[in-house]
């Protein structure tokens, strides 16, 4: 549904994205993940026809963005990073305007308006002036606008920014429920969000795609050690030294709390039994022992932070 082919965009002499290529299949929900300034918004602006790429091409819903821009735009629902709202309009006026610009027929527009107002939880505020709405409601209006014409492709630039935790859950569920009928590309720099809502993650950094795959695959690929978290009651200060002496233990770091330690062991090893036995035998009082899984956050940090001297 979305096919980016060697997209490169220069702002004056500065390249914002370089040779970005990826594909999103029909019905997939894909997260576009990257730190601020990585080129997420630039890529999305190119895909929605807002601006042309310097080099490269893209197809959305089967239409070439350079040659059949209008047809492509008809098939895209786009929610930009700064929600494009007219503060002096009422919610239903605004949605009506968006629908007419999409070329929707009157009856269909009325029907869809009712649907998106309900789905985005705007029923009580449909008659409100947008300028009086809270940030969370504005975000929902932006989402309603993108879904209004029932586009096969939804491109959402940071859809949960500015929402409170409950609203974030609502919006994520809403996006998840769109899977299957809609192809969704959403950008975020919030990692748990990508992990929770998306089947596939594309990580972009400094304008280049650095990794692509499901969150599970990505974390597995980049795992360099198994990590165990242990917490003990009677810390006598020799814990680090003594545990390090166990074979297959690579490193021991103290955790945030008193008596807690992260123990890194070799990839593929499982030392839970050995370590618990070791701690009990020393009489330290084992309170907790559990494996720590590498999160997407670690993967992300791994990929997007430059080590000194590497670059």
């Amino acid at each position, binding site marked *: 549904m979305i096919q980016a082919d060697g997209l490169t965009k220069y702002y004056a002499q500065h390249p914002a994205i370089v040779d970005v290529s990826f594909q999103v299949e029909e019905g997939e929900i894909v997260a576009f993940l990257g730190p601020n300034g990585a080129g997420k918004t630039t890529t999305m602006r190119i895909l929605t026809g807002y601006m042309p790429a310097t080099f490269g091409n893209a197809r959305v819903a089967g239409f070439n963005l350079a040659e059949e821009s209008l047809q492509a735009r008809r098939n895209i629902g786009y929610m*930009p990073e*700064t929600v494009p709202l*007219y503060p002096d309009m009422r919610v239903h006026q605004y949605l009506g305007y968006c629908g007419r610009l999409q070329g929707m027929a009157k009856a269909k527009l009325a029907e869809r308006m009712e649907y998106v107002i309900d789905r985005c939880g705007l029923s009580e505020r449909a008659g409100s002036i947008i300028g009086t709405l809270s940030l969370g409601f504005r975000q929902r209006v932006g989402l309603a606008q993108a879904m209004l014409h029932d586009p096969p492709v939804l491109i959402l630039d940071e859809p949960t920014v500015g929402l409170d935790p409950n609203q974030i859950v609502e919006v994520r569920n809403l996006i998840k429920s769109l899977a299957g009928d809609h192809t969704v590309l959403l950008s975020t720099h919030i990692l748990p969000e990508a992990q929770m809502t998306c089947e596939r993650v594309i990580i972009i950094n400094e304008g280049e795609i650095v990794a692509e795959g499901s969150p599970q695959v990505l974390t597995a690929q980049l795992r360099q050690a198994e990590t165990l978290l242990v917490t003990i009651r009677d810390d006598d200060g020799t814990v680090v030294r003594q545990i390090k002496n166990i074979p297959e233990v690579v490193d021991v770091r103290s955790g945030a709390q008193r008596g807690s330690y992260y123990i890194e062991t070799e990839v593929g090893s499982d030392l839970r039994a050995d370590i618990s036995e070791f701690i009990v035998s020393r009489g330290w009082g084992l309170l907790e022992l559990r494996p720590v899984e590498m999160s997407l956050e670690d993967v992300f940090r791994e990929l997007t932070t430059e080590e000194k001297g590497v670059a």
Partner: protein
Amino acid sequence: MRNILTIAGKELRSYFTSPMAYVLAVFYLGITGYIFIAIFLLMPQAQTDLVRILFGWMMGLSVVIIPTVTMGLFAQERASGTMELLMTRPVRDWEIVVGKFLAAVGLFVAVIAVTLGYPAILEAVADPDWAMILTGYLGLLLAGTAFIALGIFASSLTANQIAAAIIAVFVLLFFCLIGTLSYSVSHSLGDVFKHLSVLENYGDFSGSSHYRKPTDYLGLPNSWWPLLLGENECPKRSQFEISRITTVPRADAKQAQLRKPRCWRKPASSADG
């Protein structure tokens, strides 16, 4: 076409849902109304020129109000990010421009339509020269649309509305004042300046009811600008064919208000002063 009307309708509605349209209308009608009453009641000897002076002021005020009408059309969309909304709809770029242009023209027409009250009052008490009035309105409309086009261009240059308005006002003033140069430079260059000048061309519409070369009307418009500056301050007044002042003898003036005076008719040759 539907897209154009959608955009024009939305812009027009937002003019009228904000204080914008009303503030402009009050400003425009207040000043033109004051001039109308002042000349009509207080300076009866100047009534021959009432229509001309009135149109001169309407035109001059347009230089100021039109940039305030057009300043937000694109600048605001840029500043608030809604440009992204417009540009990613299945709407052609020119449809957006034409839609916004029509909205600004609509507001301008609505405001100058109210000024039809002035000729209506004249018709009730006198016998105005309707040909002159209609050509005056035609000229105002053409000049206004030209100003709007320029104002929209200025608005598209920046995301700052105030900057857009200032650019538009200065460029419009430049086109208004360039005509004055035409009297101090060589004849051929002077003609170029005259053709460029909004005011030079406009005089043909508002000041005189006889027509010049049609091509002159297509450019921006003649000589009402000295009215704006104050007739007495214009050193080259004799060169402007419409700046002739016809005086009605004071004794006749009172009568002129009672019966429909001849001075509202087309400026006859006898009126040449």
